[in-house]
């Protein structure tokens, strides 16, 4: 028992949420981020929260440091060692184009230089058998290449040999040899991403090496910052898979930290969905520049290993599966050359920001549209910390309206509608990819702008329920706090239902599991209670996309396997409407998840504010136009109360829009729900 702290370092703000488990009390803080010195904002947030440092038991930080270093190209110089003959694979990539009809698109530039890609004479075949052994003189030759480049750059080594996921001996021997002699960090592809597809695995190993020196510095700085605050517990980092790990362990696999800054939103969203009593949610985390969408199924975010930094630049590690759409409060409305009104993906960002910020922004943004429609309160934006100038919004809308030959209110309403439809379409695609009917899901609205748009997005998809957590703008930090220690391990295999035996599958699972549990204990800082989940990714032979099937733990018996195959066929049929009996089933990947026990968090209940006053303002709604709409502060809502729309609910970091045909339910557990009225 003590104080648990979750911190999210975003591009604009660093948020902190802490819970005092003894007192059952919550603390929150919001401070400006400092992109040049990310650790200093963490220290500032801790200071602002005013916690008793000695009682802090754990600090989990979600950070964008990894992704930023890749985007700004400020990582280490990487030497890439690979099987001779395949040195150019990071440059050749997968040969497809992002757009069909665009000469301007450029292929991703690799994080390595071509002369730093060094071929090693060694080779395995597709069953992991050695065709060419790795000779010591070959390693000596490589050592010379490495030493000749040790000219003061921050250096790191990445190794990716063909088929290393089947037998890692050559990669391991290479690391042992080079580490002893050079002291440089070495990332091995079979450890970072044990999957087939040499470009994806190799690129992930390169990203890992590229970030290693930087992460080392960051983790040291973070440790120092905690010590200087008098905090004795060691820091943990949120990983891309939404689990946390001791920072000292996590820095060994920087590629697994790439989505550290995004994962918190998904974890937080899943937590609030469960709190509201549903296992099926669509997290819509909409901030200033973009909107992250994540599906929650069975009470947990969906995971995938096909994240791409940009088109064609994959980082194939287990990550919460998030789709980012260029739609946020700062998204710019514009007229395309065909005369259609478009919104985003361009954004005015935080600086200069929307026109109404009064910082010289000339563009018309979604925030300006919401302000003109009466949805936002110019005197209570960010809890009154930023005064909005509605006249600047009107002027900006007027400029856009002139191009379209329509009036400003019409344009504002259209911008909101276009943005909502864009998000609804993106959500439909995300659900179709999973074979899911979105109408059974609830939207979990987070981020400053999520609750403003959520009900109308829901309506466009046919969803009738929206969940709004307390402090929706802090939900990512909340996710860091709600996260558990979690290890995701995968192993590529090549088995079919004809060839696989229960004994072999059991053996592979046992190996994978014992390694994963060891990793789990290292990341948790000791033995901790945990749950192990197994699954197999399967497909009909010849297909390219898999369906995951859960497998029971322990030793498998031969007659267990047919049940697993039947489960696959049923899942497939439920997604696609038919099954293909008689066609062999391929087992492509074995997957093991080791996850710590769910921690019970005290309810985060708001309320106790002054009773609702009779405030109202004119707010625009489709098919109604401007209507007098009651405006209430969230902390004035009585628990368990229900009120009909339209209504506006304002709180420190967000504004909730309740349209006319919806009602607002103030749940007992700190979440608000918007429910569409039947009929």
């Amino acid at each position, binding site marked *: 028992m003590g104080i648990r702290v979750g911190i999210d370092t975003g591009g604009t703000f660093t948020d902190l949420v802490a819970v005092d488990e003894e007192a059952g009390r919550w603390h929150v803080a919001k401070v400006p981020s400092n992109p040049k010195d990310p650790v200093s904002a963490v220290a500032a947030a801790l200071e602002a929260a005013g916690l008793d440092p000695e009682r802090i038991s754990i600090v989990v930080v979600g950070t964008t440091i990894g992704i930023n270093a890749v985007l700004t190209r400020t990582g280490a110089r990487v030497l890439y060692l690979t099987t001779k*003959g395949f040195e150019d694979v990071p*440059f*050749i990539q997968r040969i497809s184009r992002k757009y069909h009809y665009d000469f301007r698109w450029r292929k991703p530039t690799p994080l390595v230089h071509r002369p730093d890609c060094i071929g090693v004479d060694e080779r395995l075949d597709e069953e992991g058998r050695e065709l060419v052994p790795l000779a010591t003189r070959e390693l000596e030759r490589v050592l010379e290449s490495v030493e000749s480049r040790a000219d003061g750059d921050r250096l790191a080594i990445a190794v990716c040999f063909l088929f290393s996921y089947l037998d890692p001996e050559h990669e391991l021997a290479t690391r042992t040899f080079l580490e002893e002699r050079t002291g440089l960090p070495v990332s091995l592809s079979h450890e970072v991403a044990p999957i087939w597809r040499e470009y994806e695995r190799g690129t992930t190993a390169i990203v890992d090496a590229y970030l290693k020196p930087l992460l080392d510095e960051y983790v040291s700085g973070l440790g120092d910052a905690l010590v200087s605050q008098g905090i004795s517990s060691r820091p943990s980092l949120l990983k891309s898979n939404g689990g946390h790990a001791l920072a000292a362990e996590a820095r060994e696999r920087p590629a697994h930290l790439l989505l550290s800054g995004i994962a918190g939103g998904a974890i937080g969203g899943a937590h609030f969905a469960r709190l509201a009593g549903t296992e099926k949610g669509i997290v819509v985390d909409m901030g200033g520049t973009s909107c992250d969408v994540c599906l929650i199924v069975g009470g947990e975010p969906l995971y995938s290993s096909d994240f791409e930094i940009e088109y064609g630049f994959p980082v194939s590690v287990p990550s919460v599966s998030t789709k980012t759409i260029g739609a946020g409060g700062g998204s710019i409305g514009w007229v395309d050359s*065909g005369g259609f009104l478009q919104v985003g993906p361009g954004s005015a960002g935080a600086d200069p920001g929307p026109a109404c910020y009064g910082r010289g922004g000339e563009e018309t943004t979604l925030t300006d549209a919401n302000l003109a429609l009466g949805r936002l309160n110019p005197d209570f934006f960010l809890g009154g910390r930023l005064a909005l100038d509605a006249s600047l919004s009107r002027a900006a809308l007027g400029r856009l309206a002139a191009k379209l030959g329509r009036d400003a209110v019409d344009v504002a309403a259209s911008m909101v509608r276009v943005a909502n439809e864009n998000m609804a379409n993106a959500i*439909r695609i995300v659900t179709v*990819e999973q074979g899911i009917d979105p109408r059974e899901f609830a939207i979990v609205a987070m981020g400053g702008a999520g609750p403003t748009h959520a009900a109308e997005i829901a309506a466009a998809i046919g969803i009738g329920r929206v969940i709004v957590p307390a402090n929706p703008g802090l939900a990512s930090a909340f996710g860091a706090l709600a996260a558990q220690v979690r290890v995701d391990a995968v192993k590529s295999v090549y088995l079919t239902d004809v060839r696989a035996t229960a004994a072999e599958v059991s053996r592979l699972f046992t190996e994978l599991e014992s390694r994963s549990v060891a990793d789990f204990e290292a990341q948790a800082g000791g033995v901790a209670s945990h749950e192990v989940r197994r699954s197999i990714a399967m497909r009909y032979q010849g*297909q390219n996309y898999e369906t995951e099937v859960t497998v029971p733990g322990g030793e498998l018996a031969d007659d267990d396997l047919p049940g697993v195959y039947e489960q696959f066929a049923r899942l497939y049929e439920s997604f696609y*409407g038919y099954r293909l009996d008689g066609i062999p089933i391929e087992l492509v990947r074995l997957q093991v998840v080791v996850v710590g026990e769910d921690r019970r968090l005290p309810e985060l209940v708001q309320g106790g504010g002054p009773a609702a006053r009779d405030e109202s303002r004119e707010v625009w709604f489709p098919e109604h136009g401007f209507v007098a709409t009651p405006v209430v502060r969230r902390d004035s809502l009585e628990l368990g109360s229900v009120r009909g729309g339209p209504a506006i609910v304002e709180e420190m970091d967000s504004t909730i829009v309740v349209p006319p045909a919806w009602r607002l339910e103030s749940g007992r557990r700190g979440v608000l729900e918007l429910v569409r009225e039947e009929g």
Partner: protein
Amino acid sequence: MGGGIDPVTLAIVNNAFVNICREMGITMMRTAFSPIFNEGLDFSCVLFDRHGNMIGQAEFCPAQIAASLFIVRWTVEELGVDSFEEGDVVLHNDPYRGGAHIPEHSVIRPVFFDGELFGFVANVGHLAEIGGKAVGSFAADATEVFQEGLRIPPVKIVSRDRPNMDLWRLIMANHRTPRNTWGDLNAQIGSLRVAERSVQLLLERYGRDLVEEAAEELMDYSERWMRTEIRAIPDGRYAFTARMEDDGVVERPVTFHVEVTVDGDRLIVDWTGTDPQVRGPINATYGVTAGATYNAIFHLTDQSIPKNSGVYRPISIIAPPGSAVNVVYPGPSVGGNTETHPKLADMVIAALAQALPGRVAAAEGGTACNFLFGGFHPRTGDYYANYHLEGGGWGAKDYDDGNDAIIVKNGNCRNTPVEIFETRYPLRTIEYSLIPDSGGPGRMRGGLGTRRILRVEPSTEVTVNALFDRTKPGFGAWGLAGGGTGGRAAIMVRRKGDAEFRTFSEAFGTVSPSKFTNILLEEGDEVLIDSPGGGGYGDPRARDRERVARDVYEGFVSPERARDLYGWECP
């Protein structure tokens, strides 16, 4: 905007049309069996009104832009709109009925709403093996369509949601890998049901009248926008001529000619002057020629014009029947789609180079390097067939270099990872690399081609076929504005024990060095595949010195060539 529907609703209905087609495509990608289908994404999805107008599309592969337009309209016209009942699916792959080439199979399903026909959902996909004289159904020396695979006129493969099993059995008996056919056609047909449901939901939400009116207005809108784009191109007549090295049957170059007339807000693209139809399969169907023309124009105009029937209205295409750009029955055409299409598209782009110097690009590699092989796998004893292709260098532009190693314009396939390739097929990859100096020199440099060397595994026989172009001197990807030609393609063999790679003509006496079928390779034989580089743009001596230095540092350009062609002096 004109019309009665507000532009925001129009945009929303348009996005819904596109989204329905994308949903159809994603379903197909996840359930199809052939790599060319699920990894190569060689398919397109479309939505039509009941009058045969395309109102929405999501092409995953540009080759089908025109084919998908013609196939549905022509099939509905041929069978009669009244012959479609709810739950029917019509299948066809006839290249003379709007298709691009015979491996592409189209399925079409009517969408009814409240018992009345609204329109059609359809998709076109490339089946990897459809029989014919050569495994992989890319018969590079075919002289008639009958050698290219099983030809299917429009037939009902599903009647009122009941599969016509007699037809299924007939088709599968004529394909070499029927299990893939079964999986792919099921994926195509299954995705139609997903799309049908989405269309019906859209009609429920907005009402039939509004959706139909919106579709009409959207077509007019696209037409107007395309006319605006064309009006911005200076009026005039612009011509370009190019050659392919041979047709696979007769060893003689084939000449193509285009004249593009820009006349106010319309474009006339006239292919008259192209050689008569040739004996071998590089003939383009009308669907290919039209598709290549549209592909070029889409590269030169605003990408975001909604792609519906309206966008094509301002463009007229003249392709004389019986010529190499409009093959007639029973002429062969399988290579027209992959080899001829990219060159035709680049010709239209090159013709417009003087009118639009800031927008065009030099020629790309322009051959898919189709390499097809099959046999019995020594480990499993199963019969396999594979369609392999490569990316080449792309053409440089006034403002930037061309990309290295990218698939031809008519497609958007990915390569097969070596680890997947070796797991499935008994060929070992020895090398997969960029070819230095293969990019056409210029102020902006053409992209590099790639080299791949494959070796046949022990105790294995493999039957191989190839359909390449640009292997002979003088046939490389052209440069523009003084830029140089890209490096050549190659398909060569080194028999076990030989010292050097030779062409297949030298080693096996094939008529064409780049187009041949049914060559048997044995244990230890090696195949070398070079993809071509892209053309350069502008005078290489005017190239920014930092770019030259970086090319030399990265090894994209050798110091000798940097000195000789770029006038670069090593500091």
